């Protein structure tokens, strides 16, 4: 605004060959174009197609199918798996991050942990399923464990392989922000360890913890390749069912039902995000 005002006031004829400074929002164009093309447009198409039938006409059949007991089962399955795996991942990861953060900040242990976490957080999909399969699968090298098939706990144990390292990575900065002087101060004032965590450490870390747990939840919700390689012949979670209705060669293929399922997942994330926002506001109240 001020820039524009001065040029107006100066009222100097613009020199040829010299362009006026670009408005500030120009810098955001690549970002919004990217978000528009790869997030908003696909979301819009999914929502639009969810309300159509395979012939292209308007239909509520896909949305109505979401209420059916079988489809509800997939959403319950997804929710169970995401809650179990994000909460266990967040708690174990936070404890691990605390252990690492309280060590020597330049120590070799810390560097090792962070490097390994960086690698393992990306270690998912078919590779991970295969690693478990050859180790403890039906003819595993170590043993034939049967728990790994249990849903959701067996799958959550496998997901822990990438959830815990991810938690360590995203929670580490918050842990580092916890100043040792605060702990000393509260101890000088006679606080017990419990009181310190209850009134100082906990509230400080809560917003970051919730945000990280939400990330883990979304991470588990969209994970598909691991469970698909593992339990290919039964669908437990929504992404597996989307795959079934997209690819079924026995006559159950219905692209609009897939869109409706995807819409259901979007709604699920929206609800979780809304819940997160409420919690976050309460957790961060002391900041204001």
């Amino acid at each position, binding site marked *: 605004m001020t820039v524009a005002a001065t040029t107006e006031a100066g009222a100097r004829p613009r020199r040829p060959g010299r362009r006026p400074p670009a408005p500030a929002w120009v810098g955001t164009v690549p970002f919004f174009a990217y978000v528009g093309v790869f997030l908003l*447009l*696909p979301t819009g*198409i999914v929502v*639009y*197609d969810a309300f159509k039938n395979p012939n292209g006409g308007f239909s509520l059949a896909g949305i109505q199918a979401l209420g059916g007991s*079988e489809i509800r*089962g997939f959403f319950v399955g997804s929710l169970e798996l995401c809650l179990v795996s994000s909460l266990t991942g967040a708690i174990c990861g936070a404890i691990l991050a605390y252990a690492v953060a309280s060590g020597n900040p330049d120590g070799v242990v810390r560097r090792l942990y962070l490097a390994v976490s960086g690698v393992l957080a990306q270690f998912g999909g078919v590779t991970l399923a295969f690693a478990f*399969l*050859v180790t403890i*699968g*039906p*003819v595993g090298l170590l043993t*034939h464990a*049967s728990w790994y*098939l249990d*849903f959701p706990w067996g799958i959550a144990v496998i997901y822990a392989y990438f959830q815990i390292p991810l938690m360590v990575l995203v929670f580490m900065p918050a842990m580092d922000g916890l100043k040792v002087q605060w702990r000393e101060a509260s101890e000088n004032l006679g606080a017990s360890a419990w009181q310190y965590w209850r009134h100082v450490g906990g509230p400080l870390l809560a917003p970051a913890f919730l945000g990280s747990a939400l990330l883990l939840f979304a991470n588990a919700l969209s994970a598909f390749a691991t469970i698909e*390689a*593992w*339990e*290919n*012949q*039964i*669908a*437990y979670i929504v992404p597996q069912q989307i*795959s*079934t209705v*997209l*690819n*079924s*060669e*026995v*006559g*159950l*293929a219905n*692209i609009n039902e897939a869109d409706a399922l995807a819409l259901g997942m979007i709604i699920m994330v929206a609800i979780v995000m809304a819940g997160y926002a409420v919690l976050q506001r309460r957790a961060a109240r002391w900041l204001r």
Partner: protein
Amino acid sequence: MRASYRFAMVGVAALALLGAGCSSGSSGSSSGTKWATATSASAGGGMNALVTAAKKEGTLNVIALPPTWANYGTIIKTFTQKYGIKVNSANPDGTSQQEVNAIKQENGTAAAPDVVDVGQAVALANTSLFTPYKVSTWSSIPAAQKEATGLWYEDYGGYMAIGYSSKFGTITSLNQLLGPKFKGAVALNGDPTSANAGLNGVMLANLLAGGTPSDISKGVAWFHKLKQAGNFNPVSATGATIKAGTTQVVFNWDYLNLPSYVGVSNWKVFVPPGVPLGGYYTQAINKNAPHPAAARLWEEFLYSQAASGGQNLWLQGGARPVEQLAMANNGSLDKSAASKLPPVSGTPVFLSQKQATDAATYLSANWQKAIS
């Protein structure tokens, strides 16, 4: 997804119109359009003209043909050697539904599949995507195994079989598999609500357990018992999982279950006597095939009864070519390959479209509950 493809299609169609306008005088485009609608080799000007036009196109797009499935690796190689036409093989492990999805989504592009090899249900549901064509050996295909105008025609098939590692001894009945030595061993080839081979695996158990082709519930109940016994293996069986020892008992088509296909020396195959459950795959040509002459030449090659033609090559891969009976009668069948097929006894059962759809509907409501 689909809307964006639609825009892309409009663009491509506009370009195609421009292109057609520019080259309307050339002989290339006129021979191309001629083959795009030709319903037989003779209608298009004879085999030689077809070979010439196909060589000119130089490329053929196929999809979802695993090289180790029914000898497709050799079939593609032989076709390329014989005619000098490059074969683009897309998504070799795809499903039938992914094949027709590709026709729709890549419609109008040079990458669209020219021909498909799909399960019966998918073929019947998508006839509007196909164009009629009758191969020269059309009369050798049994009438029940082709669409009268040539929109689709079955190509090869087999019977559901139980393949297993010989460490289990000899399997002679279904209920043996419920025993304790089969812990975590018994697998299907794919989720039965999604994969044709998986559905037929459940149907085989159903028929052996006393069910009928119209009612798959006994098969689902049998798999429920299998799961309770701890013997169900949820990993989808492939040649690789059999080699790795991950899936030691596999319900699958016999041609995917033969020791020669699996490549494991201690592998046995059991086609349960009494109720041989058969299934054929189906060929069809994309009506907007980017290489219409090559697509038709490919079909001619697949249905050729020559010693190194498609029918005998499928047979060498353990699959039963659709012209097998006619070829046995006229002496063109590869007898040594035919003698290696597992013996089948009893009246073959083929699921009708309604039976297959009913089974799929029942499975979609009950499979997950039975097996989890």
